């Protein structure tokens, strides 16, 4: 299965990946701040560990983005290991821990246009 990767390393020719999670060009998304504040990979990318061939896990519509920007609590994870955990499930008292992560990490709700459009 990894033959294309080995092939690429051997020949120096990059693999051409098809972009599945493609935001329009007028949207600016920064991964690092989401990771730093505890938003995990699968929250946006879907259950990638269970995808034989990657599909788009979420609509990536603006309304979907804003849902989380307004109420991030259900999606905030404990620490880095959880952020990168593809099998993460919300904690049993997710709304409670989510709220505490939100205040501990000083997460401000940013829903003004220029947060993503500029």
């Amino acid at each position, binding site marked *: 299965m990894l033959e294309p990767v080995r092939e*690429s*390393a051997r020949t*120096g*020719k*990059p*693999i*051409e*990946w*098809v*972009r599945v999670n*493609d935001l*329009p*060009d*007028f949207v*600016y998304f*920064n991964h*690092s*701040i989401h990771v*730093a*504040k505890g938003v995990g990979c699968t929250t946006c990318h879907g259950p990638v560990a269970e995808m034989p061939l990657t599909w788009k896990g979420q609509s990536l519509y603006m309304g979907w983005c804003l849902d989380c920007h307004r109420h991030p609590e259900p999606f905030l994870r404990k620490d880095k290991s959880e952020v990168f955990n593809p099998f993460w499930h919300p904690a049993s008292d997710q709304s409670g821990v989510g709220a505490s992560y939100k205040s501990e*990490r*000083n997460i401000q709700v940013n829903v*003004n*246009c*220029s*947060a993503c*459009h*500029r």
Partner: protein
Amino acid sequence: METQNQDAKHWQSLEELDPEARETLKKVISDKISPFFVSRREFMEWMGGVAAVLGSSACTRQPTEKIVPYVNAPEYVVPGQALFFATASQFAGQTQGLLVESHMGRPTKIEGNPGHPGSLGATDIFAQASVIELYDPDRLQSPTFKGVISSWGAFQKNMAEVRAEQATKGGAGLRIVSESVSSPTLAAQMKAVLERYPKAQWITYDSVSNSNSRNGAEALFGEVLDPVYAFDKADVIVSFDNDFLSPGFGGVRYTKDFSKRRKADNRNRLYVIESSPTLAGASADHRWGLKTAGVLRRLYALASAVGVSGVSVPSGEADLHKWADIVARDLKRAGRRGLVLAGQNLPANAHSVAYAINSVLGSEAVSFVNPTTESTKNTLAGLAKEMAAGAVDALIILGGNPAYSAPADVPFAENLSKVKFTASLSMINDESAKGCVWALPATHYLEQWSDVRAYDGSVAIVQPLIAPLYASKSKHEMASMLLGRDAESSYDSVRNFWKTQKSGDFETFWKKSVHDGVVSGTSGAVKRPAVKRAVTGTPPEGASSGWDVVFRPDPTIWDGSYNNNPWLQELPKPLTKTTWENAVFLSKASADKLGAKDGDVLEVTVGEAKVKGPTWIWAGHPDDSVTLHLGYGRTATGRVGTGYGFDLRPIRNSKEPWLATGASVRKTGKRQEVACTQNHGLMEGRDIVRSATVDAYKKDPKAAKGHHPPKREVPSSIPAQGGRPFGDQEEYAWGMAINLSSCTGCNACVVSCQSENNISTVGKGEVLKGRELHWLRVDRYYEGSAESPESHFQPVPCMHCETAPCEVVCPVGATTHSPEGLNEMTYNRCVGTKYCSNNCPYKVRRFNFYHYADVDTPVLKLQRNPDVTIRSRGVMEKCTYCVQRISAVRIDAKKDNRKIKDGEIKTACQTACPADAIVFGNIKDVNSEVSKWKATPLNYGLLEEINTRPRTTYLAKLTNPNPELVTATPAASGHHHDGGH
């Protein structure tokens, strides 16, 4: 013309002073923005059609995009994160250390290197705009032989034959032409070439040279030296035609130092006597526009009044000497903190006189260094003669464009065909390249290794940001080829040179020098030489008869080197606000004498030769004199520069390259429209720029507030400045302050903004319709008489009003307010009603009428800033306070769980500004720099009486006139007493 508007102290264009013209102007403006009359039914029918079109195109998928990652990722490259590398640019004698922003290996934005003495973090327009030159689609992309595409291999073969032939005769037929060389490596290489071919000649030719100031130093001190000025140490400055605030030798650093002395507590005083209006003149406390003869007479009169021994005293009017006595008194009071300068257009003995005055004063504001550029005494005129006589076998042009810039009496271009082997190294297929057998593509400075000396002698290493885009070579590689070392790279040449200069651990030295962008310990030894010889020369007696023709490099495209640069072509010339072409600039009185109005084509005759160009009236220009700018009327350039302006070559000569006297000027009856941005921002009858003298300010700090209309009643429902709902809950409230005392009007901010924010140019035709897209403009206002006005500059970005009038009229919510106080523009919501622009009192919103951005030419894509949307047709766009920079810093701070530090966010206009006139930051933090500026009594908001609560505010301008000149001779500041009439 003596009376000003009753309601305005300041005026902006000459039409405003003339009631009749004023009416015409009003009509023109209202025509330009005539409302879009349409009945409701028509509107509905039209909208129905639009809805049908929109309906059919909705819900489309985006085209499939591929991700192509590195197989072996280079160090530190993270997609989406910019890297900065130190390098340096050299242009027009000005060297600036730079930090260049690179996105995934593409240089996109130029910033100044704070560690470099010629920059201190700031840049000029040329450095800012140089990045677009790299991606110019019109660049030469491969060597051509007699106009046919060839290869470097073929050239090197031909070159080897030339070398073999010249080796037999010591290089007697070999000639190399270049501009003066500021690279120590290239100078050493040229020396090696001349050692190899002792009979060869190296000719340096600069279209704008500093030979007069050098020769003046040699005449006075007995050695060839370059002056270095310290404007921060000068209390009183008298400049004779020296525009030290414009790009040129040390211009950025000089502006930095000068602007430090524009504050109330240690304000300097500047007198400027000039034959053509300049930025220095516009910043002056006293300015006189005189014909060149009058400028020289004042210089000699001042020298004699200061007490320079042996100087010839101009005979004549009492007024002249009375003036000289007053200025000399002021200079002597300043003593060691006085400074006199002469411009490069004045003859060498005028420079001697200026240096001699400084010596008498014991000025600490001037010192000297060994020449910072290498030049030779061989002249282009001599070379042209040799070429005509068939004495030249091989001619190599290393940069510069002598075939275009040589004056009429130097038949260089005409004789190129008499030389068997000719080769020109240039970026564009220009006149010199076209005239040569071989046209060779040159590397851009961002593609090559080199080194370059700054105005004070310090050296910076030029480091490439990108591999050459095309099959191009550098001057170093050309020099190596002359030595038969075809394979030697610029990297090797530069390193090999520095290995000979440094002992000890070379790699450590090299890494540090490349990293810092400046080689430590290279700034020139400062000299304060004693006057060894008496000053020579005599001032001209009386005024020259007939018309003077004053030649100057163009303020934005210089000698034509930047002719194909769209940013600089569309950049309004700082004082005239004209774009895209040169014109015949003259005073109102002179134009009236000819019966000419703006746009009437004039014919300027010098001897037998004539040139024609459109009239443009320039307030403050001396009478009976015209100013013409170089760089236009090109016969060989790229697509951007073709077809604009007229060439001055026929009427220039090499003996007096900057002045022709006894000329005649006449009206031809034809018309040519000039694209000027001046009246688009007209703000009638309002106190827009406020100013006061330092003395008045010290007596009453509110003096500069001026007599502006009273504020309208504020309804209690509107919160106070900075209060709810804008900012109470937030940590940050962004604001900007602009100091009008510091601003010199140089326009570096405008180009920096253009580069940072992917702002398109629109072309001359669209500028004529008022559709230029600059997010930041610099308005220029005049005060006083049309003959000798005081000039003020006012950079106008978006005001980010707390109660923004644009927001409430947008029917689709495309412009909104952020909690931190930004007035945001969301392009993908905008449907282009333009209501916001109509309702903006500051006219800072720009509408994209056509799809001005070229998104098809592949090479242009490389330049764009990936952090800013490329706007399409039909949307409004405007200043965002560089929201992408705010966002980047905010994310960094949030990741570290800390607050954003003051000064951590710098807008593009702020970083470029050589005068430190712009400050940006958090106005909620009382200790931030911007809060401190806003807390001074000079702070005011533009049109604040209409309660827009602008976040961008201005510090009123302070002037420091000499009381003796103001009270003793009120006319002295306004009329020409000598030379002018």
